[in-house]
């Protein structure tokens, strides 16, 4: 039976990234597991999460030998901070769908509709 869920989804990813950023050198999965505070996740859970982070291009896998694999952050914490928003909005279609942006991403047709509405209002004002 699965144990109680101790972390929210995504929280472990953030914790691992924080551990990698605060380390001076690349860390092994075991090192990362040991550095996590609170309820320690299983070793396999850490590996799965690292795999997910690698697919998101947040973590780089450094294979020194088949039994010696280390992980490093793909970007520094500061670089990642500025990339995060941009990537979230520009990279994936799904993010654009999920977020309601201030710009609204209006199409050329939308702009024409807005222009014609404003033109008709100006026309009415001139007449009155």
């Amino acid at each position, binding site marked *: 039976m699965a144990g109680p869920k101790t972390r929210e*989804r*995504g*929280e472990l*990813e*953030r914790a691992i*990234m*924080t551990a990698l950023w605060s380390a001076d050198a690349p860390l092994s999965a075991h090192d990362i597991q040991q550095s996590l505070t609170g309820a320690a996740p299983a070793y396999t859970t850490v590996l799965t999460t690292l795999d997910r982070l690698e697919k998101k291009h947040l973590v780089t896998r450094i294979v020194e030998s088949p039994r010696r694999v280390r992980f490093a952050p793909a970007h520094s*914490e*500061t670089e*990642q*901070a*500025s990339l*995060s*928003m*941009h990537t*979230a*909005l520009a990279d994936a*279609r*799904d*993010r654009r*769908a*999920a*977020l*309601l*942006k*201030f*710009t*609204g*991403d*209006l*199409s050329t*047709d*939308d*702009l024409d*509709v*807005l*222009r*014609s*509405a*404003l033109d*008709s*209002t100006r026309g009415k004002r001139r007449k009155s």
Partner: protein
Amino acid sequence: MLSSAVFIAIALILLVVTPAALRAGPWAVHHPRTTLVLWFSLFSLGCVSVIGSIVTAVIGGLMAADAPDGATAIALTATSWLGLGAIGAAVGFIVTTSEPIVHDFRVSFQDVVPAHASIEERRALTLARITSDDVIACSLPGRDPAIIIPSRLEESLTRPQLQAVVAHEYAHLRSRHHLLQRVAVLNAACLPQRLRAGREFQRATTLLLELAADDAAAKQAGPVHLANALAVIGDLTGDPGLHLRAERLTTRRWPPARTRRVPVAIRI
């Protein structure tokens, strides 16, 4: 059987013809909220008519035994089964079509906001300030709603202008605009690609949702501040739509300044 056909005709008119006929025009641009309410009411009525037509067909089938002759009884029974078949096909089609769309809209706070962002838990929402060169504020709907403010945007705007931008995003969250957007996307995906009605409806919904959020923000934070914020961001991004939205705000009358009240949850 006749009543079932009438329901189907009403549904077709409401779901396919109405969005094409009620295109976003000058009136809709000046009354976005009313237009959205009208459109989605008609759309809902269309969906109810589809259900009505199927229920009527099924009831007709159940009453086939009372039919005056054999041919009518067979026709009623066949219509009833066709109705049930249509329900199954429609449910299957909508579920298959909606699955990728629902997935597209599923994004968590952690996916967008970096670990070290300045996070402020407010009543009913989170205000996240992130270090970014972007000038786009955005809202993240869902169980843990959030408004995300990039640092460059905050540096580019005055405090009242930023307040107006946040009020715009809050209007999206409060009015559950993401749900209306999803319905429009799903509707466009379910209708045949040849029909422009679905795409038009989706496109016009996006425009009107932005304008409705502009109006709500202008009433709360002031139309001048919102118009100035739109103009500043328009200059930074080169997006002509933002200047047009700013100009639209100057074409209508607004309640006096003393009636403005920014909700506590988003005061900055």
